[in-house]
């Protein structure tokens, strides 16, 4: 429930601002100059804010589309990402957003058309190269779709560029606009997954894994391509049994030709980010695991990471061609 909405003066009368405000009729609206006044302020308590986050409507003027970090990709030679939103309605304990921003408030950039222009520019500059765009690097791509309509908006652009891939990464059950649109071969609906008992401990406020699998099945049956993202892989008692059950359950639930790609990612935090997150949630079980600091990155020991990835890959390969399996090393 959003009680307060901060609105940048510049976009006060933007049609999308009015559209979003119409969804929160009882919210108190406060005009601001720049979203950074609220969002980037020092001395904010992330944990308190997360219990009652506010919404900030803003205009994004630069950095609309950025190159994805090395090691982030699903086969194409160039990868870019963009975020129409900062922060997430979910509260996953391994999420890097907890340590990245000082604020837990949600920022929505309403100038979607500027994202289109920037995306088209990047596509033009990379003509002849296979590229993938990732939506939802700084947020969940679809969790607030009913409020923003961003996916619906951006899909129209990608109908024009059928050889350019776009991935929506999500944990949500949001099916609109996909359930009502004709499937597009260049769109990947990617779902983050982990064994249910781990998810119920770590994926706070998210739909259950079983519900996510049901939505995937529905969308796959409509003809949409599905991405399976086991990222991060979480260690713990019986992890082999838990991941085996999960992988087999997912891979047996979906028509195999609907699977675009499967990726596995390790649990990793830059040291500074890890320090902020553990300060926020010192009692969190996740951080009691066999983590250590290697060259400024806090992660499971190399052997554990490798063992987990290989184990999961060996199961997946029985269902999915190796060329569709990736390791995310960001």
């Amino acid at each position, binding site marked *: 429930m959003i009680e307060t909405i901060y609105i940048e003066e510049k976009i006060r009368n933007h049609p999308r601002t009015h559209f979003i405000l119409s969804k929160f009729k009882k919210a108190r609206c406060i005009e601001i*100059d720049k979203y950074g006044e609220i969002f980037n302020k020092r001395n904010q308590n992330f944990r*308190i804010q997360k219990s009652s986050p506010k919404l900030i409507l803003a205009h994004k003027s630069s950095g609309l589309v950025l190159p994805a970090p090395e090691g982030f990709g699903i086969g194409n030679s160039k990868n870019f990402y963009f975020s129409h939103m900062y922060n997430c309605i979910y509260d996953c304990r391994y999420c890097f957003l907890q340590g990245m921003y000082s604020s837990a408030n949600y920022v929505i950039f309403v100038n979607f058309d500027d994202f289109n222009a920037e995306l088209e520019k990047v596509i033009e500059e990379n003509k002849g190269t296979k590229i993938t765009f990732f939506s939802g690097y700084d947020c969940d791509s679809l969790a607030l779709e009913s409020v923003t309509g961003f996916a619906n908006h951006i899909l129209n652009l990608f109908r024009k560029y059928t050889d350019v891939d776009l991935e929506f990464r999500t944990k949500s059950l949001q099916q609109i606009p996909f359930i009502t649109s004709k499937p597009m071969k260049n769109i990947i609906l990617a779902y983050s997954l982990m064994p249910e008992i781990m998810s119920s401990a770590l994926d706070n406020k998210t739909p259950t894994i079983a519900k996510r699998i049901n939505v995937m099945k529905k969308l796959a049956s409509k003809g949409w391509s599905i991405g399976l993202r086991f990222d991060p892989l979480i260690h713990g008692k019986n992890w082999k049994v838990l991941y085996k059950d999960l992988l087999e359950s997912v891979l047996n639930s979906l028509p195999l030709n609907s699977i675009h790609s499967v990726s596995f990612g390790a649990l990793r935090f830059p040291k500074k980010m890890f320090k902020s997150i553990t300060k926020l949630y010192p009692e969190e079980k996740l*951080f009691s695991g066999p983590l250590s600091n290697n060259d400024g990155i806090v992660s499971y020991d190399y052997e554990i990471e490798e063992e987990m990835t290989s184990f999961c890959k060996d199961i997946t390969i029985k269902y999915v061609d190796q060329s569709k399996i990736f390791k995310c090393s960001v």
Partner: protein
Amino acid sequence: MKNFFFGQIKLMNKKNKINNFSVRWVIALKEEAKTIINHYELRPVNENHLFPIFKNVDETHWLVLSGIGRHNAAAATSYLYSTSNVMQNTAWINIGIAGCGQGKYGDLCLVDKISKNFGQSRYPTTKPRTHLPKMNLFTSDVPINDYSSQELIDMEGIAFYDIVSKFTSNELICLMKVISDGPENNIKSLNRDKIINLIKSNINNIEEIVSYYEKLSQLDFLNNQKTYLFTQITSNWHFTVTQKYKLENLLRRIKVFLCDKNVLEIIKDCKKGNSVLNILNLKIKQSEVDWSNS
């Protein structure tokens, strides 16, 4: 084995749950403060000082009388900060009467935006899920009789906020105003008794808001406090500063696998701090998080 009193751990943990919150009040006039002083049973600390300070027996609530205006508010806030054992988890409250172009005489309002004649606005947070109205506050250097362009008007708010936000998080700062004058209620008709009554008639609402900040302050304290186990171990073995930091991390992690008593049991024969760290490290490496009992 070192001389530990296991029973005390439980007792200490229990004790720590009581009154670890910390609240500081900055109020301009003694008439505005009277009800707060009575309600929270505050006693004078330095009555004849330029900025009189009051506190309760537990020393969880401290209050300073700042006098009118931005400069007084800033100076009094700093003075209270330096004299009242302020902690990182201290919540700061400014309450007072205010003129208002809208709203109803006598209403208690929470402030979520503060501005002055020039410069950037400030955005304090407010208690969520409350029936109380939220308003913008304009801090003026001179009394204003033209209420038409503003919601709330005071003479201290922005200075209080600017100083306090230097030493606490935005979520622990609260500004509340009771509407005392406006187009329908002439400021000249305000007197001592009326001001006291304006605050007094809102004491239940004030208490509700203050108890929210007490809870936030308490939670923040519990989140950041050193555990009793840490204190026990560091008082029995010598650790360097870096080792203490490592110990704190290891104790945070080992809590998932062992209770305090068992931690003490496995380190009881250690001769040096370094061997305590090694044993804890080894135990964590050998343990696996059990997700089934989350």
